[in-house]
């Protein structure tokens, strides 16, 4: 949930929690004051009426029984004892309006000329009700306006206040370590955002530095290892030119030379693996797979001929994906090479292309390795002893980078490796 929504929600809850009791209290107290005043008026009327009728009991006979705000009726002595003075709300039929109107009613017993009466005095509450409802309406209107203002405040003002935060977020979201584009945060007068920007800038510069160092380490490691390897290899080469060399010495040199080459290739592959895992191949191009497969197969033409392999490529559609061209060459090159070199003389290779993926099927010797381990580093088939064992590991790294899935199955000398884009 958005922070903005949460704060708005809390504000509204707080406002409701505060305003509802307040409204009740406000309504109650206004009503109380008004009723108090009406009741006082009724008490005064009672005082006047009882005073007049006590002094002049004849009034009770001459006074008209209607169109006045009070009526009376005789009661028994028994009733006189039990009747208490009560104030109550009542509805009275108003013929003019054609409806019942609210009234305040005072019922009280009184004595006049030795007789007992029940006096009922009425006071109209219509104005009071109108006043109260008007007040209530205004209060509610005020609240609604307050609500709307609050929501607007949150939506507009807070949104504007939070803008630098969202801008920074968007910048960080699109930021890529390997693109070397520095982040410039916009100036803000908000202290917290300023601190956030500073913290982000620091984090980015530290990460960039670490990334750079790692990159440099990879390159330095390469440089440091390649140079002694080159020197050793060149020394072997110079030594091999010596005409005085004996056969056994030449064979030792041969072994040194082969192992140096193996080391050089391992180093190269490990570096490539490290670079792939560090995502150092950011730029991509649309993959032209049939062309690439053709090129790779052509590079191995003589070997294919030498091993007497039948190669068939079935092209049922071209995938629309983007890949780094160098990695694509390593990826498909390794897969084709794998199919060629781990094949039997007179065998076959079938490559099936479609929009979703590629299938490499080839004949080959029975595998001694568990397929799950096939993509691990330094796993190799015992028969191909000089193989570097990193080829399929490279394939695995590249497929991970691009989100391809690679599946391998083998069954009685048929090896199937399928890549799904």
């Amino acid at each position, binding site marked *: 949930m958005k922070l903005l929504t949460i704060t708005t929600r809390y504000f509204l809850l707080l406002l409701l929690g505060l305003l509802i009791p307040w409204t009740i209290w406000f309504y109650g107290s206004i009503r109380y004051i008004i009723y108090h005043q009406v009741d006082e008026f009724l008490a005064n009327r009672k005082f006047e009426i009882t005073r007049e009728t006590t002094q002049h009991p004849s009034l009770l006979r001459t006074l008209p029984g209607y169109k006045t705000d009070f009526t009376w009726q005789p009661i028994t002595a028994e009733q006189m004892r039990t009747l208490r003075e009560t104030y109550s709300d009542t509805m009275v039929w108003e013929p003019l309006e054609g409806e019942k109107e609210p009234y305040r009613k005072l019922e009280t017993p009184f004595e006049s000329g030795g007789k007992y009466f029940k006096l009922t005095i009425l006071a109209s509450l219509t104005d009071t009700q109108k006043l109260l409802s008007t007040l209530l309406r205004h209060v509610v209107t005020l609240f609604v306006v307050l609500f709307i203002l609050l929501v607007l405040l949150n939506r507009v003002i807070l949104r504007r206040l939070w803008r630098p935060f969202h801008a920074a977020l968007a910048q960080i979201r699109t930021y890529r370590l390997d693109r070397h584009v520095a982040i410039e945060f916009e100036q803000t007068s908000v202290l917290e955002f300023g601190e956030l920007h500073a913290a982000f800038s620091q984090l980015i510069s530290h990460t960039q530095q670490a990334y750079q160092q790692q990159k440099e380490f990879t*390159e330095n490691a*390469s*440089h440091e290892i*390649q*140079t002694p*390897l*080159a*020197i*050793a*290899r*060149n*020394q*072997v*080469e*110079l030594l*091999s*030119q010596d005409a005085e*060399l004996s*056969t056994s010495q*030449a*064979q030792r*040199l*041969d072994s040194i*030379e*082969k192992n*140096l*080459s*193996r080391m*050089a*290739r391992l180093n*190269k592959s490990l*570096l490539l693996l490290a670079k792939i895992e560090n995502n150092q191949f950011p730029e991509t191009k649309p993959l032209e797979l049939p062309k690439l497969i053709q090129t790779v197969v052509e*590079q*191995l*033409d*003589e*070997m294919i001929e*030498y*091993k007497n392999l039948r190669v068939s490529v079935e092209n049922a559609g071209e995938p629309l994906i983007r890949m780094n061209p*160098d990695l694509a060459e390593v990826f498909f*090159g390794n897969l084709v*090479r794998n199919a060629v*070199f781990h094949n039997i003389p007179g065998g076959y290779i079938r490559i099936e292309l479609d929009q979703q993926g590629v299938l490499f099927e080839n004949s080959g010797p029975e595998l001694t390795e568990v397929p799950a381990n096939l993509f691990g580093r330094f796993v190799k088939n015992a*028969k*191909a*002893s*000089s*193989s*570097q064992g990193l080829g399929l590991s490279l394939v695995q790294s590249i497929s991970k980078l691009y989100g391809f899935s690679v599946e391998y199955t083998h069954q009685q000398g048929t090896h199937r490796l399928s890549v799904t884009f």
Partner: protein
Amino acid sequence: MNECILEGSFNLRLLSEVHCCVPARIAKKYQLSTELLLSFAASRSDKMKILVVEDESEMLSSITAYFAKAGYVCEIAMRYAEAEEKLALYQYDCVLLDITLPDGNGLHLIEALRNRKTSTGVIILSAKNSLDDRINGLVLGADDYLPKPFHLSELNARVQALMRRLQFDGSNQITLGNVVIDIAARQVLVTGSQLELTKKEYELLLFFISNQDRVLSKTSLAEHIWGDNSDQADSFDFLYSQVKNLRRKLSEAGAAITIQAVYGFGYKLVKE
């Protein structure tokens, strides 16, 4: 003169002063062999002049030893400043350039060289083998790029190919006895008649001819024709069959060159 040097009466200081090839202090400092200096001394301006820019002294000495033996005049520079100075003062046919130098980026040397519109060939020798360097180097005007660790025979073949390209505009021939190789047409003629070779056999022959009279290891041959694929078990068997075919074809055509097997180590092309 050669004999007198071989007898040991060779004055290192005098020689280097006369020929201005390798200053005595550098020769001494980096223990350049007398044999090497001999070839410097013997060389005159009609020989190919190569400047090797490399900060690793052992690397430098093996490269110069190999090229001196092949009859090139080698000069060396171990620092950026030194290389810059030499390139400004002298004319070279080819520069072998390690771009990671302690006091500067070798790529700037290529830029400076190309700005002067010289025809000097440039081959970058790099331990980085990073794509950026390769592309930058070639864009700036390097002619080739060879990642370390390389075989000296491979470097030699690249230098020769580059020299042929620069000096003969690509249409050129190599003649060795009765064998003529037409580089532009990718054809081999033995006493005038064409020898049918496969692509790999042709590449092998050219590599052998570039490094004639030298022992080429099986690894360097496999790497030359297979590149990245040379690590596979089959590649040596394949190489063996290719060399066998090439030898048979050459002898059947009556070529005056033969490829000899050298122990278990490799092969060597010799003129009969």
